[in-house]
């Protein structure tokens, strides 16, 4: 009996190993190894094209913090996050609360709000570039009907980042809305009913029933969208190439250019590790927040 169960046990281990092997190989090759190797690379002055490597210690990190372009891209990334995250979360919360009741056309609204989420960033960025066209674009034509002389958007260093932010909010609204809708399902309807009996209006119900019970989802959406906003790349690549005058240069685009256009793989790895550290801190904050919630 004992030997039989031991045999079964070792058989199960073997099965588990085989079942996990493909996933672990991919994980080791494309996550574990690259993360460690990019940390290693970040201590060297080296080219993506090969050639000699010189050890520079923390030199790349020092160079990074002293670099004006890096600081601009960091500032722009933070501005992008500040511009997209709170407004995006508020709008998607509004959409979720409105759609969380039995109203006609609920399915249609949900599809409409969710469509941008499934479409590729490159495709919608091209469409929005066209809509932001200073002369023939849809936005300025509509603004003109209202008597407003629209800005040059992507061609104007003051308006290019706001334009990219508007696209960012539009693209992610549906995603956040779905997360909020899932959270709203967990709010017991009796709570609203008893609040109504106490004479609470719509705003009070939202403020004193929905908000406190949704803290988990709100925290998740805020931190996830902040993490996502630190990773913007596609729309900047397509719409502005970081310009005009570096006004839309963001961290990931900066990393991409340093690594794959200027071939500074050591330096770019240092910036990538900096980005990783920022995202790690945000994730730990989220975990701590969730733990405090439970």
């Amino acid at each position, binding site marked *: 009996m004992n030997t039989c169960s031991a045999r079964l046990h070792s058989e199960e281990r073997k099965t588990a190993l085989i079942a*996990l092997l493909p996933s672990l190989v991919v994980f080791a090759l*494309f996550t574990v190894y690259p993360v460690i190797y990019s940390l290693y690379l970040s201590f060297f002055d080296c080219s993506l094209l090969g050639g000699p490597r010189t050890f520079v210690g923390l030199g790349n990190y020092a160079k990074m913090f002293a670099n004006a372009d890096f600081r601009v891209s960091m500032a722009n990334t933070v501005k992008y996050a500040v511009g997209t995250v709170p407004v995006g979360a508020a709008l998607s919360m509004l959409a979720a609360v409105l759609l969380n009741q039995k109203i006609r056309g609920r399915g249609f609204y949900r*599809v409409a709000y969710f469509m941008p989420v499934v479409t590729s960033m*490159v*495709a919608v960025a091209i469409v929005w570039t066209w809509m932001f066209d200073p002369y*023939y674009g849809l936005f300025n034509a509509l603004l003109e009907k209202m008597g407003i002389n629209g800005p040059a958007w992507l061609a104007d260093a003051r308006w290019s980042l706001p334009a990219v932010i508007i696209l960012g909010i539009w693209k992610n609204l549906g995603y956040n809305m779905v997360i909020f809708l899932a*959270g709203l399902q967990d709010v017991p309807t009796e709570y609203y009913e008893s609040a109504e009996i106490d004479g609470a209006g719509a705003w009070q119900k939202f403020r004193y029933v929905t908000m406190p019970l949704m803290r988990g989802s709100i925290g998740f959406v805020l931190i996830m969208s902040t993490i996502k906003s630190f990773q913007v790349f596609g729309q900047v690549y*397509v719409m502005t190439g970081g310009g005009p005058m570096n006004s839309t240069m963001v961290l990931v685009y900066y990393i991409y250019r340093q690594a794959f256009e200027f071939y500074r793989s050591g330096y770019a790895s240092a910036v990538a590790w900096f980005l990783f550290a920022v995202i790690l801190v945000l994730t730990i904050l989220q975990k701590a927040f969730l733990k405090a919630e439970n």
Partner: protein
Amino acid sequence: MPVTVTNNRAAEAIRARRRRVLTKTAGLGLVHIVLILGAIFMVLPFVWMLLTSFKDRSEVFTYSIQWLPSRINLDGYREVWSEIPFARMYLNSFIVAISVTVCQLVTSALAGYAFARLDFPGRDVVFMIYLSAMMIPHQATVIPSFLLMRKFNMVDRYTSLILPFAAGPFGAFMLRQFFMSMPRSLEEAAIIDGCSRFGVLRSVVLPLCKPALVTLGLFQFMFSWNDFMWPLIVTNKMSMRTLQVGLALLRAEVSTEWPMLMAATVMATVPILVAFLAAQRQFIESIAFTGLKY
């Protein structure tokens, strides 16, 4: 005297109810207005994309808005194919997205089953480590991953486009949760009948979780179809570019040929939009799943 009091009270109650109904109707009207305005904002870019794709060049460059094309002009749709190897890019995107999806389903089912059902030492630790990989941003691993692919001579090959995404923690996590929610008794019967663990997985477990597989498959297909940064980095030859990279290059090449650009984006987004409209529930579920607290 008592009669008038009751009458007054009754009248008061009726008035109050009428007021409530009125404010409720007005409120509902307001809800619809907000939702419709939101829906217009969300859908307008898609409508504008489609309308522009059918226009003549002369109809695009007008100062006042011309909403509808005067006739359905398909020049844009025709020209794309000669401007860039669009057919080949389409094929590449399909090959890559379908391969990634199939690989993901297989590897995630195997890994998810091992984590859910098989007993081996350190299982939960391995699972936690694997799961925490989800927070590592792609940008932190992209430079070494590229160097690795180049070393193996896989630049401009399908392998480099597929392999890094052939397995991942998200799929394993999702299916593990699903497997754990299933009763063990079905599997036990098959095991007593002498079925191997893989046999159980294939002929008992997987047929029961088709909905979860469809959801994961759609999610992975969408992710792979829309991915931009990695294909941009790991392909050089036009014939190996995917659709998203092709679109971005087309935009850089012809910059203001808007009817053609819009025609190309329409064609590039149609597969995803059709899949989404056909299986909205699964798409939205897969997104909601990413918001689960783990």
